């Protein structure tokens, strides 16, 4: 009976399964819940640079308090009863002290006035003040100890939580994401720094192929790197503090594990492991180390003797132990000299090494994203602040001590007076503006941490903010770290990386990536204990690796073991989903290593995913409806456990379905949207999944050079160089990412009707042919704004520069107003004066009244505009402000409107760049019988080898879009979920509007009026104008300036330099035998010099103008002096050699 029933059941299951499969095969778009709306919601709450803001906010709210709490006392060494204690610290509102009045500042004010957007660091202090034996406790609140540069849109910023209108009032662009600093008027981004995980065991091969296990420990107190190395089957410890590598068993013995058996038990009783351990044990014995005492003595001998600290011998006795306690695997704390946790840690390291030796798969991958941490602005600033704060404390202490040593002080001693504020302010400002992170205390010396925010286009700034700078130097020729890692999926953009030396090392975050911040550890540890983790203290070495238990490792620290790891992990996850523990805590069961990893540290990358139960998404139709109605936010989804963040490690425990209809019963999570694996910059490519992959990478680089609008406040800004498009458009073929990031509001390109055909021969090698009428009507027209600054200097003797009113009838002073400054709106040409300035000749000496100085005491020092000759620019804006020395600072914005010309660079969104080859009249352009005439013609040879099918689909979609009046979409991988229009649908639309389904048109030649032989693929494509324009690059010179030293022509366009005939060009001329040409190029046109050479001594002489005769200085006569021509550089060489006591003699012979 029972059997039959079971059979029937299984049959039903089979049928069910079949139906299921059919369901999967059918177009499933309607059956799935459209989760797309989550994405705008996610980005609305988060912004595009949440990682920076979060990190900085964490530092401001928690990090800085921790630092101050850890170093809260300044105690006088002279009188220990005198102390100062910091009770609290907070960051005030961004403000500036002007004339002793604190004034609120906005970021835009700082940008314009070249100041730093910073807020005071306020502390509450409690200190003992006293004089003449009387001491009293004083409390002061809100004492300023320095100024902290504030990240825009962070919680301290005035822009925080403001709506669009309020932002506009503050002069800020609502689309600007923030996340950068304004330091001395320039916008600075702290790049995300990629690093190897701290406090984690990493098993790797070194250069010789030896297996090693390394731990980079980092605690508040110390930072160290511990390496255990396996060499010739024996294991050693490498630590900087020890001169040589130390047999690992000696270390174990020094930590109190005297019995070899205990070590073997701790490593695990597998006979293979014992066998591998044997050589190490034997070596230890061969050194005669059996007890802890012997081991410590052995170590003592190995300790590097530092040259300066050899004061007390007694202290040195314990140095080995101190190193083992404080430096060796510093992340494992030693409490009350209990070394057991450290021993267990070493045992685990050994075990993992041996595992790797037996099984190569157990090796760790350094390039695996899960083994990496991203260091963000908050962490970097906190390091800097900690250093500066500690320095300040020691300084205060020192000054206090020197004062207290003096016996008869008159005034009462007030600790709070000695707090200096400039060191912190200047230190922070200097680091941010130079990008040099020199923190001696943490042995940190990094350069180029900050960069000036690129404001070429909106995309460029966004891309800059998501950039991750690599840990290695770029010169290393390694392929591993550059390759695309499978674990980057969804976290880091696979397309957006530069070409060339930094290829693959510099990465970008994907659209939905979040970078975690630190989370409080102790509650999580106690929670783990509550959930059944058996404490290490209670376990013997034997029990550590019992086959039915897993180790529980929390942030790299071994907590203990658990007998039911899966249940434990599930419980932790359940708590996380319920919101009882932080949403970014990751729980990862590593079956291979038989360990459960729990991580709550900062810098992990993670991303949100929809949770599925047995393959059924937790998000239902009604959830999305509530979201649309505004009754639900992204955070609600998170709090209700519908969505959770997974980091790279935990992703390994998940089975993630791309779409709901692809889910199987094993599926645990479902992606929100597949196109979120791309980043912001790659997101603006339509149909990137139809392109050859490097094309998308090229576009990512070029999208950042495209001109367009950079921000709503672009005309109110004072950027040193600004490129704007006159008529920017939003792309006809958009993607969801474009709408999410606001590229449709700040576009950087125009929809050009493109005909793919050959025309005129000026379109070879990717050149494009442009329609003159289109250019007349404004296609590709751009505005270039350049800033020129000039300060009206004050000098130490009281004199200062002055600006004079212009003289009449002076052509060069034509554009000047009566105040001596060029007026806005004036047309300015090359060579015009724009500030009629004069400087005093005498700037030193006794103080003089500036007004009393006579006119003759000034020399003209007018600012002359150096533009392109023949081009006329316009003075756009003149801004007057005072700089930090209170000098008058005059800033000019000069505008130049340019229309495209031959040689300007354009590009579509598919990595297909090209220069304008020729410009042709509209009547010569081909036309269709509807009267459509292309804006530009692109050569079809651009397609076969590049394989940019996406561009073709963009053309089709754009054509359908203009015909039917609906923007078409081309999001990456968007066809199944309806975020990209299918070609079939597009073709249908085209046919409906009377076009051919394939996008080709019947075209007539504009020159002859005859139809062309072929159908021409024609339609709109979004074209970007790139910032490279001929006008800025073209250069030629006849005669011109020369370098003073060598008398050779100067170098470079900026100095009107010559064009170099280089080594290879020279070789060509030599090969041709064109000796006179060579002579002319290298000598006559360069640095020909007439030298007097003495035939007697072979040295150079001179020409005496008085005697009208050549003389030899050495021979003191002019008898045998000949005149000859040689390069001035040669003469210089001879003289320089002479100055070095080398005598080069010229021997002349008749040619």
């Amino acid at each position, binding site marked *: 009976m029972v059997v039959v029933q079971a059979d029937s059941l299984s049959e039903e299951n089979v049928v069910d399964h079949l139906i299921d499969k059919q369901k999967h095969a059918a177009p499933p778009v309607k059956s799935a819940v459209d989760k797309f709306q989550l994405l705008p919601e996610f980005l609305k709450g988060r912004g595009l640079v949440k990682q920076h803001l979060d990190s900085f906010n964490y530092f401001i709210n928690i990090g800085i308090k921790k630092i101050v709490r850890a170093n809260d006392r300044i105690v006088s060494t002279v009188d220990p009863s005198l102390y100062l204690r910091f009770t609290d610290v907070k960051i005030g509102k961004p403000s500036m002290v002007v004339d002793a009045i604190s004034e609120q500042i906005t970021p835009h004010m700082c940008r314009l006035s070249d100041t730093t957007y910073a807020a005071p660091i306020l502390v509450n202090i409690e200190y003992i003040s006293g004089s003449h034996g009387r001491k009293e406790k004083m409390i002061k609140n809100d004492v300023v100890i320095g100024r902290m540069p504030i990240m825009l849109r962070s919680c301290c910023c005035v822009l925080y939580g403001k709506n669009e209108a309020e932002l506009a009032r503050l002069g800020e662009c609502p689309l600007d994401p923030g996340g950068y600093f304004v330091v001395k008027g320039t916008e600075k981004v702290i790049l995300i720094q990629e690093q190897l995980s701290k406090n984690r065991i990493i098993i790797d091969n070194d250069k010789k192929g030896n297996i090693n296990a390394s731990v980079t420990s980092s605690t508040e107190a110390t930072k160290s790197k511990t390496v255990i190395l396996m060499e010739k089957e024996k294991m050693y410890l490498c630590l900087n503090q020890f001169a040589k590598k130390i047999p690992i068993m000696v270390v174990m013995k020094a930590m109190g594990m005297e019995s070899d058996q205990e070590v073997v038990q701790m490593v695990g009783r597998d006979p293979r492991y014992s066998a591998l351990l044997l050589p190490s044990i034997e070596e230890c014995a061969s050194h005669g180390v059996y007890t802890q005492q012997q081991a410590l003595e052995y170590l003592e001998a190995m300790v590097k003797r530092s040259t300066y600290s050899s004061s007390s011998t007694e202290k040195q006795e314990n140095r080995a132990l101190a190193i083992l306690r404080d430096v060796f695997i510093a992340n494992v704390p030693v409490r009350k000299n209990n070394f057991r946790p450290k021993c267990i840690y070493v045992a685990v390291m050994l075990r993992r090494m041996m595992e790797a030796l037996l099984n190569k798969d157990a090796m760790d991958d350094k390039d695996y994203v899960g083994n990496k941490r991203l260091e963000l602005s908050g962490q970097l600033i906190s390091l800097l602040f900690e250093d500066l704060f500690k320095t300040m404390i020691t300084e205060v202490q020192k000054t206090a001590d020197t004062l207290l040593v003096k016996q008869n002080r008159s005034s009462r001693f007030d600790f709070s007076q000695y707090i200096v504020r400039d060191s912190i302010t200047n230190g922070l400002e200097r680091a941010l503006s130079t990008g040099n992170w020199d923190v001696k205390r943490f042995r940190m010396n990094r350069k180029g941490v900050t960069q000036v925010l690129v404001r070429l286009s909106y995309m460029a700034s966004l891309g800059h903010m998501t950039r991750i700078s690599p840990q290695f130097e770029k010169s290393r020729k390694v392929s591993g770290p550059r390759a695309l890692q499978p674990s980057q999926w969804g976290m880091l953009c696979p397309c957006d990386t530069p070409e060339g030396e930094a290829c693959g090392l510099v990465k970008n975050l994907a659209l939905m990536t979040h970078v975690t911040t630190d989370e409080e550890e102790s509650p999580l540890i106690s929670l783990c204990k509550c959930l059944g983790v058996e404490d290490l203290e209670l376990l013997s070495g034997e029990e550590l690796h019992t086959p039915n238990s897993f180790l529980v490792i929390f942030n790299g620290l071994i907590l203990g073991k658990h007998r039911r790891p899966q249940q434990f992990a599930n419980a932790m996850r359940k708590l996380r989903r319920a919101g009882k523990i932080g949403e970014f805590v990751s729980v990862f069961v590593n079956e291979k290593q038989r360990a459960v990893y729990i991580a709550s540290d900062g810098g992990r990358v993670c991303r949100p995913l929809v949770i599925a139960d047995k393959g059924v998404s937790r998000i239902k139709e009604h959830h999305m409806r509530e979201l649309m109605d505004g009754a639900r936010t992204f955070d609600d989804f998170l709090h209700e456990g519908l969505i959770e963040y997974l980091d790279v490690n935990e992703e390994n425990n998940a089975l993630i379905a791309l779409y709901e209809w692809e889910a199987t019963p094993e599926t645990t999570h479902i992606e929100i949207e597949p196109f979120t694996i791309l980043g912001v910059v790659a997101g603006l490519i339509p149909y990137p999944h139809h392109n050859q992959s490097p094309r998308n990478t090229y576009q990512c680089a070029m999208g950042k050079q495209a001109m367009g609008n950079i921000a709503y406040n672009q005309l109110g800004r004072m950027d040193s160089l600004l490129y704007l498009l006159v008529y920017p458009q939003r792309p006809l073929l958009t993607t969801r990412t474009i709408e999410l990031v606001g590229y449709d509001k700040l576009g950087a390109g125009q929809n050009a009707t493109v005909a793919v055909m050959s025309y005129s021969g000026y379109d070879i090698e990717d050149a494009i042919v442009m329609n003159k009428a*289109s250019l007349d009507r404004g296609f590709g027209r751009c505005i270039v704004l350049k800033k020129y600054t000039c300060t009206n200097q004050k000098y130490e003797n009281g004199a200062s520069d002055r600006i004079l009113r212009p003289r009449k009838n002076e052509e060069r002073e034509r554009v000047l107003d009566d105040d001596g400054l060029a007026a806005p709106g004036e047309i300015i040409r090359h060579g015009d004066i724009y500030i009629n300035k004069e400087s005093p000749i005498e700037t030193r000496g006794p103080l003089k009244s500036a007004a009393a100085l006579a006119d003759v005491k000034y020399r003209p020092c007018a600012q002359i505009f150096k533009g392109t000759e023949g081009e006329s620019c316009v003075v756009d804006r003149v801004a007057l402000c005072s700089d930090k020395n209170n000098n008058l600072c005059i800033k000019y914005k000069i505008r130049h409107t340019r229309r495209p010309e031959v040689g300007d660079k354009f590009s579509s969104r598919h990595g297909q760049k090209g220069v304008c080859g020729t410009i042709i009249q509209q009547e010569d352009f081909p036309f269709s019988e509807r009267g459509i005439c292309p804006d530009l013609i692109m050569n079809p040879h651009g397609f076969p080898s590049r394989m940019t099918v996406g561009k073709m689909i963009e053309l089709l979609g754009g054509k359908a879009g203009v015909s039917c009046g609906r923007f078409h979409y081309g999001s990456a991988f968007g066809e199944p979920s309806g975020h990209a229009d299918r070609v079939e649908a597009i073709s249908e639309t085209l046919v409906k509007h009377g076009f051919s389904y394939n996008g080709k048109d019947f075209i007539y030649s504009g020159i002859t009026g005859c139809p062309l032989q072929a159908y021409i693929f024609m339609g709109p494509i979004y074209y970007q104008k790139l910032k490279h324009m001929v006008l800025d690059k073209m250069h030629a010179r006849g005669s011109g300036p020369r370098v003073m030293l060598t008398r050779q022509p100067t170098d470079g366009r900026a100095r009107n330099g010559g064009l170099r005939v280089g080594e290879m060009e020279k070789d060509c001329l030599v090969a041709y035998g064109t000796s006179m040409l060579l002579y002319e190029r290298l000598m006559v046109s360069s640095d020909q010099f007439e030298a007097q050479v003495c035939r007697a001594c072979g040295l150079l002489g001179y020409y005496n103008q008085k005697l009208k005769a050549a003389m030899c200085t050495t021979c003191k006569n002019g008898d045998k002096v000949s005149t000859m021509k040689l390069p001035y550089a040669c003469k210089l060489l001879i003289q320089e050699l002479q100055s070095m006591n080398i005598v080069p003699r010229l021997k002349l012979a008749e040619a």
Partner: protein
Amino acid sequence: MESVSYQRFPKIKIREMKDDYLKFELRETDASMANALRRVMIAEVPTIAIDLVEIEVNSSVLNDEFIAHRLGLIPLTSERAMGMRFSRDCDACDGDGQCEYCSVEFHLRAKCITDQTLDVTSKDLYSSDHAVIPVDFSDPSDANDPFDNTETQRGIIIVKLRRGQELRLRAIARKGIGKDHAKWSPAATVTFMYEPEIHINEDLMETLTLEEKLSWIESSPTKVFDIDKVTQQVVVVDPEAYTYDDEVIKKAEAMGKRGLIDIRAKEDSFIFTVESTGAVKASQLVLNAIEILKQKLDAVRLSDDTVEADDQFGELGVHMRGG
């Protein structure tokens, strides 16, 4: 050699005529003639457009060049243009645009004093010559249309002003041709097509079933063919809708009926579509173009070089002398 006259007398038949739209047939001539006419219409029929802008006050968001460019592109009524002089060969003035023979002056004064943004449009341009004004696009026929869009009534927007912003300028319009700058081109669209000649092989067509016929008709992206409801025969409803896309021919081949249809372009028959920017009426545009074409030919015919080299031209010379 017997001299054969290739002289032909082209004919024009107007199909549809509106102020800014003209559709006509040009017959009994060849592509060179049709194309010459098209090219002249685009590039060489003169109009008047703003060429020089003197800005007195501009506190708008758009910069001076931007506004000047926009002003230049506004079409001005240019009936006078044919009779005007180019300012470069105007002898009444020194080319600063002050004289009535070659230039027209415009003034624009606009200031926003309310909280609402003010649209400065082509209607705000005041002309010194009542015959040369910005083109009015409002259609008088539906002036009392309740759903009328006021935007079109207001002309072409030049710039939008916020409270306190002001724009004051003087502009000089000059005569010019589209070859110099597209703003002087009176043509929005000038295009022609060869008239198609469609022959259906009725015998072969009858071998098709109704469904096949329908699917064959469907294969054309434009509506060229239809089926007669009564006779169920395929008929050509609109030969000009055919875009030479070959779709029907391919379809016929795919159906295994090669030669089902024969479509040829008539070599000597063109259908022109002319859309004007409004600067001149479309009909006038064509007439002006013919006039200019004639002038150009005259210039060749009457030039000294031509007379000298008369012998070389042979029969062509006879033509040119009006033979």
